[in-house]
């Protein structure tokens, strides 16, 4: 019997992740009632879809063993992590103290994701973008974005 060799590592991992997602969804949909085919309950479609996703994952795993394909490639972590952190920074600062702080802070964190960033330039630019956002979203479109909120003192 020939040894099974992984010919498409990317597909293998992709398929395995789908199976993992499917198992997770099956677990999450656990307590839901499936009903019957003619009268589906809330759990029928999620469960059915999870099984289909899992099936597609298994098929991908099969393909990865049978046919040559992509390698996994590089997985740089620093850039994406810092972008995500930047978004989180925004989320945590937008209500208090508001956009005046959230905007520049998020942009500076995002800036750390690229080696090309020139800090002084970005710092100035970030205030400019924040001002433009304030003008666009708040003044022009009347959206209730907190601009500067210091509890008990300023609400803008």
């Amino acid at each position, binding site marked *: 019997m020939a040894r099974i060799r992984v010919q498409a590592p990317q597909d293998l991992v992709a398929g395995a992740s789908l199976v993992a997602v499917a198992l997770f969804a099956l677990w999450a949909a656990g307590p839901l009632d499936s009903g019957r085919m003619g*009268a589906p309950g809330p759990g029928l479609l999620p469960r059915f879809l999870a099984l289909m996703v899992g099936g597609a994952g298994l098929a991908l795993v099969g393909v990865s063993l049978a046919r040559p394909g992509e390698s996994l490639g590089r997985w740089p972590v620093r850039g994406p992590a810092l972008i995500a952190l930047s978004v989180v920074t925004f989320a945590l600062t937008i209500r208090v103290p508001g956009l005046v702080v959230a905007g520049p802070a998020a942009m500076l964190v995002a800036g750390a994701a690229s080696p090309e960033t020139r800090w002084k330039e970005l710092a100035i630019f970030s205030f400019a973008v924040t001002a433009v956002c304030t003008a666009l979203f708040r003044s022009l479109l009347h959206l209730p974005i907190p601009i500067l909120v210091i509890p008990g003192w300023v609400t803008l």
Partner: protein
Amino acid sequence: MRPSLIVLAVVLALPLQGRAAYPERPITLIVPFAAGGPTDVVARIVGEHMSRTLGQQLVVENVAGAGGTTGSTRAAQAAPDGYTLIMGHMGTHGAAPAVYPDLKYDPAKSFAPIGMAAGTPILIVARKSFPAKDLKEFVAYVKKNSEKLNEAHAGVGSVSFTTCAFFNSLVGAKPTRVVYRGTGPALNDLVSGQVDYMCDQIVNLVPQIQAGTIKAYGVALPQRSPALPDVPTTKEGGLPEFQVSAWNAIFAPKGTPPEIVKKLSDALTKALADENTRKRLLDLGADLSDKAAQTPEGLAKLVDSEVARWKKVLASASKDAAPPR
């Protein structure tokens, strides 16, 4: 880079908060439903006049979700300073405790009632081709054929869901309840005859009834609605027990100072006495006859009785409901 200077200027020019008479800045009126719906329309019409009385803008903020309970929860947890109010309705401040077992607020205990803005009467309507000429025939037909009939509603906990549950339990009908995401799609399928009947707020239905695309069998009011004078009341039609209204009322968070409640309540009373505001509400089919509930005390009583009523109705409705298909 000039714009950074602009930001600085804006920051420096910030108005500092001082002590002044209420209200000294715009008031947020949370509408726990999407803009454009019946509650939203009432809120905006009443809010417009109240803004003039109070000298500050009443800004409507739509916080939709989970049958209005998302917005109501937010209002219940807001600071009781009179700057956050909510336009609650029969669902959020009446039926919700019976529909949502883990509700994060208590309609009676978490709020300081201000007053009812407008009632919106409930109509019983059916597809154009429904074989009944009046409410009596309709009730008889539904009783006899309910297992074959499809009733449309706009989601668990919605006005159409709760009021029709009440109707069904009154006449002892067990139709298949077909759910839609909102009144619009449900109405669409009623017009095209895919479903047989539904109960809903008059505001949504007036134009369809006038155009004859659906049939109205009864309005749940003590007297006929001026918006649809040809539609008999449920009392005339032999179903006097069916008295429901999707009332809309303004609440403040519990703990709001009484002088602020008074100020708001006075502004509301003034708005509801205004000829133009009244006309706009009445044209929509709204009901302004319940004077008692327009006061904080009257509204508190209404909330208590509604919570008790829907608890009973919906408990018996789920007991009587047709077994799972």
